[in-house]
């Protein structure tokens, strides 16, 4: 990725405290178009809070978040998704009683910029064949076409995680926030997810929050390290591995 780099997301000095505890303390982060940017840090470092601030479920106390040139802080979650910032969930968050296909068609249908609003009361959805065939495309990308007719709640954990990814993909994000996509997965399922993310990496910018260090060092173009609510280092994997401060604060704990 040596072409002219542009900043897609800029987080500057974002703080968020709960009572006297700073979950985020002047955290700054810059994500460039096209990269897979991993965010690592020990438990309680503020990774989840940062995801909440980025996706719009929490208002920061201070700081700025600029996405594709637009200030995000005051925008609601659905407006951010429409701008191209989508998130997946650490704890699987699907429509368990709907079919796998319905889950994905909802995500496709929600893209107002492509299909217009869903304030359509009379025309049956079943004639929207373009939406349905696009949903099958996304199911194909995560290898779930075979279970399209099953209820999402009946899928295995690994399959549900893949469906989770299909849902965010179907919103056609410019930036994908992946919140611990490997959470709770066995080694085989993890390997499949790593492959999936690798195959997506060429097409979409990603912020990957993950505990699985093997996966992070394999997938990330750059890594930021969050400790006690602040980003203490950002750099390429090799540099992060060699950084003494990072080793002391974080990697040292597990190696």
């Amino acid at each position: 990725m040596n072409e002219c780099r542009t900043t897609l997301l800029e987080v500057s000095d974002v703080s968020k405290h709960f009572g006297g505890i700073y979950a985020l303390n002047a955290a700054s982060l810059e994500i460039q178009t096209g990269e897979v940017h991993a965010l690592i840090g020990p438990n309680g470092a503020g990774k989840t809070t940062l995801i909440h601030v980025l996706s719009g479920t929490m208002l920061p106390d201070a700081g700025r978040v600029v996405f594709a040139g637009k200030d995000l802080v005051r925008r609601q979650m659905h407006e951010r998704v429409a701008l191209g910032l989508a998130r997946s969930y650490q704890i699987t968050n699907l429509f368990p009683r709907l079919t796998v296909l319905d889950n994905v068609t909802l995500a496709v249908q929600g893209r107002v910029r492509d299909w217009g609003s869903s304030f359509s009361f009379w025309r049956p959805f079943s004639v929207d064949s373009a939406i349905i065939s696009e949903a099958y495309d996304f199911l194909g990308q995560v290898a779930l076409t075979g279970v399209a007719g099953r209820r999402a709640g009946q899928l295995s954990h690994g399959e549900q995680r893949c469906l989770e990814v299909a849902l965010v993909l179907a919103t056609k994000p410019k930036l994908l926030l992946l919140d611990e996509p490997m959470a709770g997965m066995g080694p085989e399922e993890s390997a499949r997810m790593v492959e999936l993310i690798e195959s997506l990496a060429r097409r979409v910018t990603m912020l990957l929050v993950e505990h699985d260090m093997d996966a992070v060092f394999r997938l990330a173009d750059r890594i930021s390290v969050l400790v006690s609510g602040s980003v203490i280092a950002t750099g390429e994997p090799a540099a992060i591995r060699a950084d003494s401060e990072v080793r002391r604060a974080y990697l040292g704990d597990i190696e």
Partner: protein
Amino acid sequence: MGLYESSKRRRVAAAITLASLLALPWLITALDQGFYISFASRVLIFALAATSLNLVIGFGGMISFGHAAFFGTGAYCVAVLAESGIVSAALAWPLTMALTALLALLIGAISLRTRGVYFIMITLAFAQMVFYLVVSLKAWGGDDGLSLVRRSIFGGLDLKDDTTFYFVVLAILALVLVALDRLAHSRFGRVIQSIRENETRMEALGYPVFAYKLVCFVIGGALAGLAGALLVNQSGLASPNLLHWMQSGTLMVMIVLGGVGSVYGGVVGAVLLLLGEEILAEWVPHWPIGLGVLLLAVVLWAPLGIAGLFGWGRSRE
């Protein structure tokens, strides 16, 4: 539950029911039970009111405990308009629907900022405010309610004739059910049902959830207003009872009995409850207790309601 999908079987059943309802007045006349034509209209009107609540609760997942506000306001609106000389149904009924839609917009815009129990309580509170406001208005008859000076005039039809009125009500109910069936399968219908299933995720997929819920709530309010407009024509009286929270409760019982989230749930529930009241109350001295047991049984063993038992509920189980 999943998304509502109508089956061929359900459409056939609906067509048969419609045909028998079309034949009903002749049967009633043949049996010389003229009173029951007006009663049948009443049942169909309650079926419409319950259906409108089912759109809000069953499809939209908004447990509103204040639906009587729209039902009763519809009745009062027609009575007040008739007093001031506006008796044309083509004018009075749409006006009534517009007014109840506006009321639903106001109540919904505030109530839908809350969730769960708070939403139930705030809709109840708004409905009770409307109730006390109307009861305190001496010009509208206070506790006694407001009599309808004359029935609406529907084009060239004379609604004073019970059979004509019955057919008008039946036609309106059938149209609303067809529209609701279309709505359930439309993009909008999928969106509101999915919001019922997982609101947070819908927001995360880019849907302005609040706007969709509000529109659903307003449609429900307008249809309840239409039901109120019909009811005052049937009974001749806009009674404060129609605005009371117990009325909201009755409509809720109807959809729980009939089938929450099924297009025909409200109809089945209204027919069961009102027929039960009319027939069983004569034979069974403590019918309300029987109703309580029935309700309990439905909630425990047939959560999709009676319509669900017959495959009239959601088909994808």
